[in-house]
């Protein structure tokens, strides 16, 4: 057919979707979280290890979703554990997505108010952002994935350029010694690195939208690999550039790294501005992902039509944005999201076990 009406995404779109969903606030804050946890220059080992640990989690989600082709978690959870527990689990997931969406916008608003728009009321930043997001989300997964495909190459380009230029302040000694205190600090760092990958739960719905769900595992691992590479580069360059001590104390270490040097003779003297631009766009992508997931979830749990749910989601997201009272609250919320992430994962494991027992053990047709 020439004119397509189905809402499916290609494998490459799925990869970008996965990467862009997770790649949000993390770029700016992650080096601090990780270095605070490890307290040694081995932060990058912790990131690498965290990424590797996440892979089986992702595979589990992909495999589970592949058992129910064309269905999202909001549809198949009922079939596994029954109507009520299924709905409860899905609602938890929606709440989780909403909290992350609020967290993302709030971090964005904090950074914007601090660096770009001092003295502007926070709602003036948050409201238009949510509205533009609502406009995009109303276009369905295809429109969202296409915007990601535009934004992603731009942000990768700028990010890599920024880091390449920052190599002038890069000092390899800042990264030494490798594993000087053994593996204990790295393990401690894992506590901070796994939450960096928060958002991979989108797999539970993403697989249902793929044109070739068979390639889902490859796509999701691919998305994770890109992400891991970006995070590794970030943490290495930040720690190498501004040393572990500054990374631990600054609120937005990546921005501090980029602000720490000037390039003369260029239109913008400091690359902080292009970095801010791509970061804002990346936050938009990440936010839209969670916005989409939660709207889709509510629509599918309660059998509502998708468009009106988006309108209802807008004020809820705003409220979720406004809940933290200060930057400290926000950072605390970030930690809490990490905890929620782990508990949700445990619930999901429970779900999988139930499914295994029912299909393999009791030979039921789920």
């Amino acid at each position, binding site marked *: 057919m020439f*004119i397509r009406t189905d809402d499916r995404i290609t494998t490459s779109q799925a990869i970008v979707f996965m990467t862009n969903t997770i790649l949000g606030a993390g770029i700016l804050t992650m080096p601090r979280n990780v270095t605070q946890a490890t307290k040694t220059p081995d932060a990058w080992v912790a990131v690498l290890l965290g990424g590797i640990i996440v892979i089986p989690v992702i595979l589990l989600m992909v495999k589970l979703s592949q058992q129910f082709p064309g269905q999202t978690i909001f549809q198949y959870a009922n079939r596994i554990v029954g109507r009520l527990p299924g709905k409860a689990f899905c609602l938890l997931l929606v709440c989780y997505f909403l909290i992350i969406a609020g967290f993302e916008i709030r971090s964005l608003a904090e950074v914007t108010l601090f660096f770009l728009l001092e003295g502007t009321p926070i709602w003036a930043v948050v409201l238009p952002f949510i509205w533009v997001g609502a406009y995009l989300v109303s276009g369905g997964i295809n429109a969202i994935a296409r915007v990601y*495909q535009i934004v992603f190459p731009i942000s990768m380009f700028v990010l890599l350029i920024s880091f390449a230029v920052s190599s002038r302040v890069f000092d390899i000694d800042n990264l030494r010694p490798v594993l000087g205190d053994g593996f204990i600090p790295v393990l401690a760092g894992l506590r901070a690195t796994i939450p960096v990958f928060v958002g991979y739960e989108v797999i539970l719905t993403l697989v249902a939208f793929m044109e070739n769900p068979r390639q889902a595992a490859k796509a999701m691992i691919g998305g994770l690999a890109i992400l891991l590479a970006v995070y590794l580069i970030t943490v290495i360059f930040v720690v190498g550039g501004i040393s572990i001590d500054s990374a631990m104390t600054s609120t937005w270490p990546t921005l501090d790294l980029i602000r720490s040097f000037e390039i003369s003779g260029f239109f913008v003297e400091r690359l902080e*501005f292009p970095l801010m631009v791509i970061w804002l766009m990346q936050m938009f992508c990440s936010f839209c992902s969670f916005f989409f997931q939660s709207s889709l979830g509510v629509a599918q749990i309660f059998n509502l039509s998708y468009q009106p749910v988006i309108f209802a989601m807008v004020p809820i997201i705003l409220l979720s944005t406004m*809940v933290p009272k200060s930057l400290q609250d926000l950072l605390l919320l970030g930690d809490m999201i990490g905890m929620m992430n782990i508990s949700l994962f445990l619930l999901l494991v429970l779900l999988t076990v139930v499914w295994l027992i029912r299909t393999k053990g009791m030979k039921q047709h789920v």
Partner: protein
Amino acid sequence: MLSSVISYFPTWDVWLQAAIACLVPIVASFVYKKTYSLAGKGRNPNTAENKKDPDPPAPNNSPFSGDYATDLATIRERIGGNSDLCSREFRMAKLNVRATLFFVTGMQNDRVLDLQLMEFLMFEAGADVYAEPERLHDQLPFNNLFEAPSLDSFNRSVLFGYTGLLIEGQPSGLLIECPDGANRAVQEPLSEGLLRGPRLSFTEMLSVNTSMLRRQGLSEQLEIKTFQVGTRLQKDLALAYIKDIVNPDLLEEVKARIQKMDFDFIAESGYIEELIEDNYLSPFQQLQNTERPDRVIAAMLEGRIAILLDGTPFVLIAPATFSMLLQSPEDYYERWLPSSLLRMLRFAAAFMALMAPSLYISFISFHPGLIPTELALSIIEARQGVPFPSLIEVLILEVSIEILREAGIRLPKPVGPAMGIVGGLIIGDAAVQAGLVSPFLVIVVAVTAISSFSIPSYSAGITLRLLRFVGMIFAAFLGMFGTILFFLLLCSHLTKLKSFGVPYLTPVSPFRPRDWKDLFFRAPRALMKRRPAMMKTQDDKRKS
């Protein structure tokens, strides 16, 4: 515990904001839907499925009575009131029957009419011609000879410029000699100037335009299908495509949309564009218009469909994608390296035409710290005497530039340069001298204007001109943040937009690596072996 939870409960002003947050999109979407249905009135839903409308009832088809005197009287009664209608009654000498020629003055070649037609009919047409009345078609030596099916169509055709012939004893009237009204000569394309390439442009005559397409090359696959459009004043519209390349589903869709157009008069191809496009509230054009046959034929070879309308030199190409708006046929005529450079330049220019004033506003009003210090200092120094905020300053200059441009198009040619001098002087120099705007802004606006001139298609240019003002408003409220929001909004809109089912931003997204060869770059021809993937053509090889 409980009190700490309560302390996080949102205060009433947050609730108010939430209410606003909820209301604005609902109101916006309501207004959008209302406008959409309002603008879409008189247009049928545009899917191929529900196109099976019954054909509009033919306007009172009164047949020929077959009696010469009655028919003559009826024709005279119906259209005889037109003072430019001539009817010449004569007697065919060899047959001894009466006949009448009807024609409208000025639409026939008089020499042919007098010397050849009349002479033949009056003195030569003989019994051999008239022996078998039902085979009259074959017997009369005219190239263009139709039998009018009804009196009404006979009348319409005569008034449109055909020569009508009514012969005693014949069951119906005949139409001979096609209209030959005033027409201008073929000229160079005015709206799309060029240095290298065919200097041919379409004219107002459909037959001339289709012949231009035919003359591009020998092919039996180039198919041209004609439709009648317009409910009150009917006009010819032709679809041209290459039969073994075009995607049949696309062709069906275009045909269905053309047939569903419901408007009394289609004056220009812009009418068609508005009546068949996918989203008529979008600022972006979803069909490309051009007056260059080479562009049309190239598009047809990519699997697109050309829509030609009688009476306008502008031909529509469907479907259109964003990248087409920034491409020029000359890219393919010149060497590929410079062409690629020029093409990238155009993309950069389009970006500047869209964003430069918003960037100026956000840098000057919000983030002077982000530009190099010396530059910021000199700009601020130059802006010392300017009493307005930067938005007003930019608006003054932008609006006057737009007025100047608009005036420049309408002005008669001898006045044009004079106005250019006056306008340029006033805007460039006097406004700065008077302290209305800063000299730096003059540079920004000039760069913007020049950039927007470099966009090959005028229609795409005005879209960017419109959006530039939207971007300026965003920037004036939220600075850089607003500009980024504007960019994201634009991206969101463009990704939702489709032209006849082809996503507007193809091949950027959905990502089609094969088509990237002809996007920012113009790859060497040896590499472009296949037609664009986005068109889903039947035959996608360009090389055997």
